């Protein structure tokens, strides 16, 4: 059996080794992320069926918890790990041809570290370890946002860094308060000791942790950095940030709220926060003229929707939330990758400059359109079953509150459809008629794009492929006692 710790260690070791490889040959450096992520993808897919029955617990250093750091490779962890490896692999293939300027070697190191951080966060079972991996994720994101070194990139990186660093300090403070009260850092052990959040010394760490992690998860009102950072990073990085980084942040928030604190009374608050984030994200996206900013705001909206679904806290709701998370990751990564080469060709991020793209770059535009349709929730793409599941889960609660919130969610979807329609219209139906020469994206970009398209269509037609796995993720998140027993025994 493969040890899940390799999912973290192999990308990290390769990241350390990149400078050595760079001394041998500059050309092989860019293939290292592909190798690492291929390994991660194969290992995670192999582990997936096993962990669905029984989570794998790894004790680092051979001590027993809570005295060591443990990894919990449960359904959620491995599902995320598959998603990270899959999206990471496709984006790294795309980056082979896309990243041509700047310190290329350093880009690939940072990329590997970002993947390491993200995988570490989803697998670890120790709150402080989570913080450390979270920092790897954040610091590599700050540097990658500034990678192009232009005015916008540096400025957004500064903003991102200041807000992120403040958030990190809050997380550390929250961890300190938890350690002071319970004398342990193991998440399962903490969960076993925390019975309610009524006591203020439990409530404050919860608030600090949710606030700190919420900065990375882009929950309103902590998301001021996101539109700038996602729009001024290189497009391959925007895809990873939108597709992986904020989802991992959301995972951390959800893990803290559900597993460590078991805070069911806190969920109503998150429910409203989710809908608020959704509405604000979609409404801001509506008024954008910059295509990448529009996608960035749309990511905020989608994060709100996922948070809403997860906070319903029924098995249906949680599965629907994770389904929507997968669907958003695939679609948004596809969109950023597709738009990357369009911007590369036109040199501008204005929506008006995309006019006539349908003829100039037909394949990229096709992939782009499918991504947009899926994000809006059109059948037969993956966005349709996932949104349907959320609405069904919310209505099954049979409370007036949820009905009202569902109406708001539907309004947000309509707004989303409206602004995306504007982009589609620009691509296909506007622009001068004069036939310019076709100049598509290179093959190293089209292959990942069409793998994403394939996944979106196939899962959209057979949602069972994914939903089978989602039930056990929901039960892992909702059955706190099983999680505690699994680790502490």
């Amino acid at each position: 059996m493969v040890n899940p710790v390799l999912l973290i260690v192999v990308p990290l070791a390769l990241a350390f080794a990149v400078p050595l490889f760079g001394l041998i040959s500059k050309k092989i450096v860019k293939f290292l992320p592909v190798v690492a992520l291929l390994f991660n993808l194969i290992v995670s897919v192999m582990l997936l069926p096993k962990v669905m029955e029984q989570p794998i617990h790894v004790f680092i250093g051979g001590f027993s918890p809570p005295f060591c750091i443990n990894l919990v490779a449960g359904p959620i962890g491995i599902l995320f790990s598959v998603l990270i490896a899959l999206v990471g692999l496709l984006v790294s293939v795309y980056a082979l041809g896309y990243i041509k300027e700047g310190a290329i070697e350093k880009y690939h190191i940072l990329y590997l570290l970002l993947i390491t951080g993200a995988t570490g966060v989803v697998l670890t079972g120790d709150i402080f370890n989570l913080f450390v991996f979270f920092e790897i994720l954040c610091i590599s994101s700050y540097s990658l946002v500034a990678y192009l070194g232009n005015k916008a990139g540096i400025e957004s990186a500064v903003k991102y860094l200041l807000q992120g660093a403040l958030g990190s300090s809050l997380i550390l403070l929250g961890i300190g308060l938890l350690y002071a009260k319970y004398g342990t850092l193991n998440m399962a052990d903490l969960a076993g000791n925390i019975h309610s959040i009524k006591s203020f010394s439990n409530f404050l760490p919860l608030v600090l942790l949710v606030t700190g992690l919420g900065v990375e998860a882009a929950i309103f009102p902590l998301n001021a950095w996101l539109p700038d950072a996602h729009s001024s990073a290189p497009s391959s990085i925007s895809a990873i940030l939108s597709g992986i980084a904020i989802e991992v942040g959301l995972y951390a928030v959800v893990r803290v709220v559900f597993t460590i604190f078991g805070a069911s009374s806190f969920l109503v608050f998150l429910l409203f926060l989710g809908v608020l984030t959704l509405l604000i994200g979609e409404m801001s996206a509506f008024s954008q003229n910059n295509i990448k900013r529009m996608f960035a705001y749309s990511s905020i909206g989608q994060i709100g929707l996922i948070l809403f679904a997860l906070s319903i806290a029924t098995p249906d709701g949680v599965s629907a939330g994770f389904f929507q998370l997968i669907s958003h990751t695939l679609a948004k990564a596809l969109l950023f990758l597709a738009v990357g080469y369009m911007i590369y060709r036109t040199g501008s991020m204005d929506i008006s400059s995309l006019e006539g793209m349908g003829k100039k770059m037909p394949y990229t535009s096709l992939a782009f359109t499918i991504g947009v349709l899926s994000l809006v929730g059109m059948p037969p793409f993956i966005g349709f079953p996932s949104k349907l599941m959320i609405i069904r889960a919310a209505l099954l609660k049979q409370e007036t509150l949820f009905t009202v919130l569902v109406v708001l969610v539907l309004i947000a979807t309509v707004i989303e459809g409206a602004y995306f329609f504007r982009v589609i219209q620009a691509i296909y139906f506007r622009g001068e008629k004069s036939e310019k020469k076709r100049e598509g994206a290179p093959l190293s970009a089209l292959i990942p794009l069409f793998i994403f398209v394939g996944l979106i269509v196939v899962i959209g037609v057979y949602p069972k492929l994914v939903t089978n796995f989602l039930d056990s993720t929901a039960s892992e998140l909702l059955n706190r006692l099983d999680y505690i027993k699994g680790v502490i025994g």
Partner: protein
Amino acid sequence: MNFLSQYIYYIGAFGLFFIGLYIMLTKKNLIKVIIGLDILDTGVFLFLIAIGYTSGGTAPIFSKSVTETGKMVDPVPQALVLTGIVIGVSVLALALALAIRLYGHYGTLNLRKIKEQRW
């Protein structure tokens, strides 16, 4: 008086924390904001060290003369602070690097004047 002696380290730690937070919220100059961030971090580290303290405790290091565990402070917060400091240094270095580049682009470090992207 008893209150002070009991909570003096916490007061110090959170005092630093609030000074740092106040600087971050109100100052315009990026370098000052980064300094505020560092002060805030220091406050958090002091708090972490303070929670591990045992009255009259010594460093958790054995030697030929010290072989009893009786009066040793908790080693875990010290390990956490070590990690925390390294992370703080990393963020600080990156922030300063970005500040240098930002100055190169704009010729100023005043955050109210740097508004290419909407805040």
